[in-house]
């Protein structure tokens, strides 16, 4: 085991910049695929990275901006608000699962929770497109349906990765904050109006 790691060490210390970039990009892309088609996979959790969550968080925050006529107060606080909710929520869930005795590391949990925001980001995109059409109950029903489906997808994806790390009698206790977290984000998406 030690010699395997040492080989890995010396090869990455001298690799070219392009190799590094491609390696990281491929890792991020692979994780996005795993979220879209969730299966139990331990290898995914092992190399965590926070690039995906950062990209998703910035995209979500940008899309949740209200266009205001007054350019001086231009949605600044809401942008920071989304950031704070996502990252603070993820940190809280991670602390909760660690306190419950889970054997997942801090950054792995942040990674999984962040990547599983992908379905909700897609839901936000769809909602914004739907809101370009005329408002009405049908508009709302479509958005509600999309948000509910994506919310369920997020929960399924994250529990596929996180549930194994908890002892069996604590699974529900560890999963319900995840449920709350994605619920808050789905609520923000559903109640979003451009004006």
């Amino acid at each position, binding site marked *: 085991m030690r010699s395997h790691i040492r080989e890995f*060490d010396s090869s990455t210390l001298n690799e070219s910049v392009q190799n590094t970039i491609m390696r990281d990009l491929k890792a991020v892309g692979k994780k996005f695929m795993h979220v879209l088609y969730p299966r139990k996979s331990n290898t995914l959790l092992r190399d965590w990275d926070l*690039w995906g969550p*950062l990209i998703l968080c910035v995209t979500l925050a940008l899309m949740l*901006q209200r266009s205001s006529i007054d350019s001086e107060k231009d949605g600044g606080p809401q*942008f*920071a608000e989304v950031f704070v909710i996502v990252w603070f929520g993820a940190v809280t869930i991670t602390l909760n699962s660690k306190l419950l005795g889970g054997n997942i590391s801090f950054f792995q949990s942040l990674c999984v929770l962040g990547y599983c925001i992908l379905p909700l980001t897609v839901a936000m995109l769809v909602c914004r497109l739907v809101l370009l059409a005329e408002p009405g109950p049908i508009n709302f029903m479509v958005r509600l349906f999309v948000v509910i489906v994506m919310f369920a997808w997020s929960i399924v994806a994250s529990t596929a990765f996180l549930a194994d790390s908890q002892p069996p009698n604590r699974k529900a206790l560890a999963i319900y904050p995840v449920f709350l977290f994605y619920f808050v984000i789905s609520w923000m998406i559903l109640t979003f109006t451009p004006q």
Partner: protein
Amino acid sequence: MLQQDSNDDTEDVSLFDAEEETTNRPKKSKIRHPVASFFHLFFRVSAIVVYLLCELFSSSFIACMVTIILLLSCDFWAVKNVTGRLMVGLRWWNHIDEDGKSHWVFESRKASAQESKTVSEAESRIFWLGLIACPVLWVIFAFSALFSFRVKWLAVVIMGVVLQGANLYGYIRCKVGSRKNLTNMATSYLGKQFLKQNTGDEQTS
């Protein structure tokens, strides 16, 4: 997990020779990786400049915030994965083994006789200067944002402190780790000799 670990027993003596060699070698002062050095400083300094000048250039808070976040992320990735390796031969990362336990790995390149792999003085100075000055500035910005109640900037500033502070901490541990390992090896070598002598005495007496 430093590379010096691998040749613990056989290289005790040669490591001291290698140390003498580095002091006798003339200090390298040319910059071997100008592009890496440029980018090392570029992302950090432009993040700070954008933060200070955003009020003047653009009335949109969001554009500034997104720009600073992008610059900070690029800087974090570049310093952690590229410039540290090329300029000072240090690297740190997190490795999770099969049991699910996470290990932080701090690696430094062994001092070798090869020309192309030695660390140049100028690059080292640029690297450490950029690495230390910028997080200090971000901490100052954090206090100023807190006390002047510009709280909306606090999220960005805290992100700056965390990302750049993490790189600073990681590289300091790489550097301190490698030096500590040398002194550890020296003391353990001397300690072993001392013990051998003492147990030898005890056996004979």
